[in-house]
């Protein structure tokens, strides 16, 4: 069990920080080994598992259109955390905000360098999201890209100071 705060301290990185934790397992078989991540503060704990990624034999796939359901609420802040898992290729990411009845709005493109990451709120991606989403409900997805990505989404409740996450 590792505290990333300690790892950052060892690496002499000052918080605040967001980025990728890359675990290089020196074995072929994972068995039931999983890297499980927990984010916590005094208010709450939230957790999810790693997303498997390998360089070896990786197919250049048409990447998924993952969707994060969003529920805009004055106390909730919605964020996506994305890592470009490709060690060589830059990702030009375009987000699409979709209302529940299918109306879509595209974001400006975001560039994420190889092994780089993005941790952006819905308001940063879509400054007019409040006007777009009826009753604050909709979903966010990524337009197709052939770059391998690792994606989580977070919600932060300003009132309870609780984070919640899920992988996509």
């Amino acid at each position, binding site marked *: *069990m590792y505290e990333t705060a300690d790892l950052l301290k060892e690496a002499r990185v000052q918080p605040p920080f967001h980025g990728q934790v890359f675990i290089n397992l*020196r*074995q*072929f*078989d*994972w*068995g*039931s080994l*999983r890297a*499980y991540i*927990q984010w916590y503060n*005094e*208010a*709450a*704990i*939230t*957790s*999810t*598992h790693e997303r498997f990624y390998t360089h070896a034999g990786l197919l250049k796939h*048409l*990447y*998924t*259109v*993952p*969707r994060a*359901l969003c*529920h805009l609420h004055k*106390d909730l802040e919605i964020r996506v955390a994305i890592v470009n898992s490709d060690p060589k290729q830059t990702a030009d990411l375009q987000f699409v905000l*979709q209302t*529940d*009845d*299918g109306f879509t709005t595209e974001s400006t493109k975001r560039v994420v360098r190889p092994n780089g990451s993005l941790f952006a709120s819905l308001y940063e991606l879509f400054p007019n999201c409040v006007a777009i989403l009826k*009753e604050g*409900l*909709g*979903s966010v997805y990524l337009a*197709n890209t052939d770059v391998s990505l690792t994606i989580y989404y977070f*919600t932060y*409740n300003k*009132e*309870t100071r*609780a*984070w*919640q996450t*899920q992988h996509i």
Partner: protein
Amino acid sequence: MADSTHLTRVDRPVAPQDSVELLGVLWERDGVHTNINMVSTHFTRAEDVRFQAEFALHDRGEREPFCRFVTPEFSYRQNMRVLMKQGLALVDREHGDGLYFVRMWVTRHRDLARGQNDLEPWCDYQSDDGKVYVTIPSSHYKGGRFPTNRNLVYFPGAVWTDRFVTRVLILNPYDRPVPCSVRLFNTGGKFIESREIVVGGKDYAFPALDEALMGADQRHLGPAGVGSLLAVMRYKLLVFVAIENVHTGVMTCLDHTMPMVMYKEPVLIN
């Protein structure tokens, strides 16, 4: 968005009952609400094809549902969002204690190839006061893509401290009761085993892994309070894990378990 004026109560099944079945717990009490959301997945191509969902609500432990209802038709361009309190509003009398067992099916266009259009069901539980906010992807148990149901499943992030306690949510979709237990491992590899938990047919259990159930106190996971758990079941059920702040009632962690897989011994590189 589906609302109560568009949900229609039905007396008999509408969707093919041998298709993929989604299971869940319907939690509608103490200000906590359940939403079931369906969004189309990345390989969806025929976006104008329409589908509808059917729900069966069971009182805990009852084989026969007390209510079936269907949503309007949606296209794969839309998000289907069903607020379960609106489904419950279709029932003309009070049922149970606000905790139910829910099964769901989705109708499928006969011209679609398998895998051509797929939906991702997400269940979320939200409380009015914001203390409960958890989201979990699908929990298929029949015909689903993910083998989440085995009779030995594990979860690597159990927590037991003064502030946080871990709960297991065990769903039994079958008609017979299934005995289970939970083994809680500390980081040194030692485990304690819970008392037997019998999950009734068409029912679920949501016990806290506390001293009463585990027969030991939190020092077992000390000093950090973190360990892993293994659910051992006589027959394969669906198991999820939640972590709750017992001081504030905040619960923002709910995750699935994984089948315990015994591979061959790892081969070290170099």
